[in-house]
């Protein structure tokens, strides 16, 4: 499992952790039933507080990506990959929608927005 946290990012650490574990699960790097490192182990490895890791694991469980067997550990849940993928697409669409509404709020026209997207895509 690869996790790289960015302390200067505006995204809270626990959210970064949630997203990266999700990526690992969706990409198949973390297969079904694979055990995640224990809360303490991951917190020691990443040098972040155990509570942050616990929060991330709770969030992942809530979203159905992992299951915690009390007293044993946390395991990758049997998720429907296509469903997970669908959820991610949806969240990206939401981000676009938010950006568009913000843009229209400051008076961007449809053409302006398309042009910006063009520029970003070219730079990408």
């Amino acid at each position, binding site marked *: 499992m690869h996790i790289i946290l960015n*302390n200067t*990012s505006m995204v*809270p650490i*626990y959210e970064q952790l949630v997203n990266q574990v999700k990526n690992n699960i969706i990409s198949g790097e973390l297969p079904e039933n694979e055990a995640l490192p224990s809360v*303490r*182990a991951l917190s*020691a490895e990443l*040098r972040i507080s155990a*509570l*942050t890791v616990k929060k991330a694991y709770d969030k992942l469980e809530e979203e159905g990506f992992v299951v915690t067997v009390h007293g044993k550990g946390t395991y990758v849940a049997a998720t429907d990959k296509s469903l997970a993928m669908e959820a991610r697409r949806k969240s990206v669409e939401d981000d676009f929608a938010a950006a568009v509404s913000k843009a229209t709020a400051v008076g961007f026209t449809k053409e302006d927005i398309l042009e910006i997207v063009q520029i970003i895509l070219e730079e990408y």
Partner: protein
Amino acid sequence: MVKVDNLVKNYGDFHLEVSLEIPDGTVTGIVGKNGAGKSTTIKSILGLISPDQGSITINGKEASQLTGTDKASIGVALSDSGFSQYLRVEDVTCILKKLYPTFDETFFRDNCKAQGLPFNKKISEFSTGMKAKLRVLVAMSHRASLLIMDEPTAGLDVEARNDILDLLRGYLLEDEKRSILITSHISSDLEGICDDIYLIHNGKVILHEETDAVLSNYALLKMDEQAYSRLDKSYILKEKKDSFGYSCFTNEKQFYAENYPDIVIENGNIDDLILMMTGGN
């Protein structure tokens, strides 16, 4: 579980009044400037000084009534006190073996070796870092369920500080129920290990927050006078006038990030917390 309930201690002009709680299985940090009352709090919990008022319980028992057996489940490292410096690590090993029934000699010897502590040299000949490592290892040597560490990393370089924090992390890893109470004025040390932070200033707890919340919700906002005049100040904890305008400290980073895209927002950390909360207006 340690519970400090309305502890009051007066030393001349200095007035300490704190309440705090360390649940099992958590790492609690106390931060604050020198002389804020961190050590006094720790010493009261250890029963080294008797509080003027209030109660301190460790696993339900009054701190002042702790017996030898109770104390065997606590590991302590104090910043300014330890075994006589005329002793050698070899002596300390033999003494610990007789003091604690649960003393783990293999663990202690292996770790002393790993940290490069010589067994046959007097402690007085050790470097500051070596002395600090020895104090921490002594505290961990008997499988205590609670470690109480007063400034374990004070006066050390980055490498030695990391070694000590890694020792503590390893200690936590062995048993989920273990707890640590740690004080430090080097806040970056605490950010990476504590679950819970108490900020003490002038003998009072002025802030109690989960580390995670400090790092993700607190922020330093920087702006010029004009932006400042337009700012909704509902979530500003402290503000300070600077050469460029204003620095404001908030615990609602998201709110300002969304509504004021034109101001500079820096992630908060415990250093900012101390500086802003104990200074500023």
